């Protein structure tokens, strides 16, 4: 009887935590004019890749910003949260190689979460991770070949994926030890879901523009926190 009551209490506590959990939302904006993106000219020297761009060549996407200044590809996370990863049971995240580019170029996962790397191109790629804290790996991926699966045990910001066959191909994967992170979309918006109430430091990181932090308090009805980056 006592055991049942204990389980029931724990269940109720867990439910109350989920019910109380709230979302952190916000918009990232960019003030100023970013440097012009450059055409990826080496693509034209590669027969397979250039065939996929009969018109203009693609450009770099360091600053994905719309007319209103909404900034994409900013990784927003709760700073200093460790040991909360649910990565093992989280759905896998996909990273594709398409048009001799990584898509998306910026993404975020949890420690232990599967990252599936696909090759949708008609040519070979090598998927070479260049981590600072996790083990490095370099794997073959033939056209139409099997997907590659990666997991990382240690949190790490902007872990680099590169293809040495096509030296312009990069993706950056931020790895967190908790599910409390998000990447801003093309409208600059982000949502970090189901955050337990409390006081936190929220960090917004852009690969070129650096990081910003804000002290926030998450209440039952959620929290809004915007960030504005300046072009230096």
């Amino acid at each position, binding site marked *: 009887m006592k055991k049942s009551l204990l389980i029931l209490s724990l269940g109720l506590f867990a439910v109350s935590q989920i019910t109380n959990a709230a979302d952190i939302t916000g918009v990232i904006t960019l003030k100023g004019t970013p440097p012009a993106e450059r055409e990826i000219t080496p693509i034209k020297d590669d027969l397979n890749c250039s065939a996929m761009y009969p018109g203009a060549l693609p450009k770099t996407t360091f600053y994905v910003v719309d007319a209103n200044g909404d900034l994409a590809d900013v990784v927003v996370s709760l700073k200093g949260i460790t040991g909360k990863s649910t990565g093992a049971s989280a759905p896998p995240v996909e990273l594709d190689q398409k048009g001799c580019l990584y898509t998306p170029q910026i993404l975020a996962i949890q420690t232990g979460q599967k990252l599936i790397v696909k090759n949708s191109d008609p040519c070979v790629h*090598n998927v070479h991770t260049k981590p600072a804290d996790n083990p490095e790996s*370099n794997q073959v991926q033939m056209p139409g070949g099997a997907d590659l699966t990666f997991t990382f045990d240690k949190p790490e910001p902007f872990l680099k994926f590169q293809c040495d*066959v096509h030296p312009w191909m990069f993706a950056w994967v931020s790895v967190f030890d908790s599910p409390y992170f998000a990447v801003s979309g093309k409208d600059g918006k982000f949502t970090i879901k189901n955050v337990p109430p409390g006081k936190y430091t929220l960090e917004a990181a852009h690969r070129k523009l650096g990081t910003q932090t804000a002290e926030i308090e998450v209440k039952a009805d959620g929290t809004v926190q915007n960030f504005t980056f300046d072009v230096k």
Partner: protein
Amino acid sequence: MNHKYKPALFWFAVLTAFATFLLIGLGGLVTSHEAGMSVPDWPNSYGYNMFLFPVKDWIGGIFYEHTHRLLATVVGMFTTILAVWLFGKEARPFLRWGGLFIFAFGIYFYLKHAPEAPLCCGAGIIVFAASFFWPRCEQSPRWLQWLGITAFLLVIVQGVIGGLRVRLNMDYLGIPHGAIAQTFLILTAAIALFTSRWWHRTETEKPKTVPGGLRRHVLYVTILIFIQLVIGATMRHQHAGLSIWDFPLAHGQLWPATTPEAIANYNAHRPPGTVGHPVTAFEVNLQMIHRLVALLIFLGVTAAAFLARKKLGGADGLAKFAWFWFGLLLVQISLGAATIWSNKAADITTLHVMGGALALLTGALWWLMAARRTRQAEQL
């Protein structure tokens, strides 16, 4: 025992040294194009036996890395042939058994349905058949045979280090890989020199001695060039891009400050188009040491050229060779400057690597020839 000059052996040794020089250039292109990891497996290439890897897949960085590997196997094969050739007729039984051994491997691959089977069987048959009519010549001196064996072992070590650099994702193994390549080039070129007509001629003709001071001077400068090449290899294998992007000044100064504030300032004002991770104080200092050693080498080679003319006379072959060395240094320093001005353009940087190899080789051959002349002059 008087050993005869064997023109075919000499020219084959020259071919091996020349192929090695080209291989250094191709290796330079691999690093210049950051293509060292573009073929993640070794000794296979994308799962294929490297000789069967489809040409259509030699794309992007793979082209540089894969052709580097193929030329490396050619150099390995040439070195093996050279080592066997130095043993003369003595090597025939070894070849016969070696051919059978390779053929047996081919049969093993055939039973395993491995694609290597025809290559292995074919190579075994060729080696076995060759043993009935090659080599025909007398054996070379024992010490020269040992040099051949050393070259054979060194080329294997070099191949394994190259493979480990790929398999273990160890960028820094590129530094010993580069240093061994330079040593191997000197070794193969030295074998060519020792089998040359000139070397044999000095056995009977009394040549002019070369003063010990001049010989030591050239030796020290040559060692300094080798150290400079190791510094260069270290700079290249940091994959850091240019740490100083102006020349002859360095970040606008004679010797750039490396305080944390100064380094932060360099990184903040990095010109567009420069690539690599943020510059560090170590990298700035390393490039400055590279520049300083370059100046010392230039002064050393200039002194060697003037001294050789003074001590040996302007018409002497070694004096002319020293002036060739001086000219080579001028070209090499220009290439170093062009490397910076072009923001490490791959082709120019690679020519700078090849120029460095040639400068080292020139110094080493000069010293060997001077030592030979002096020794023969003293004996005869």
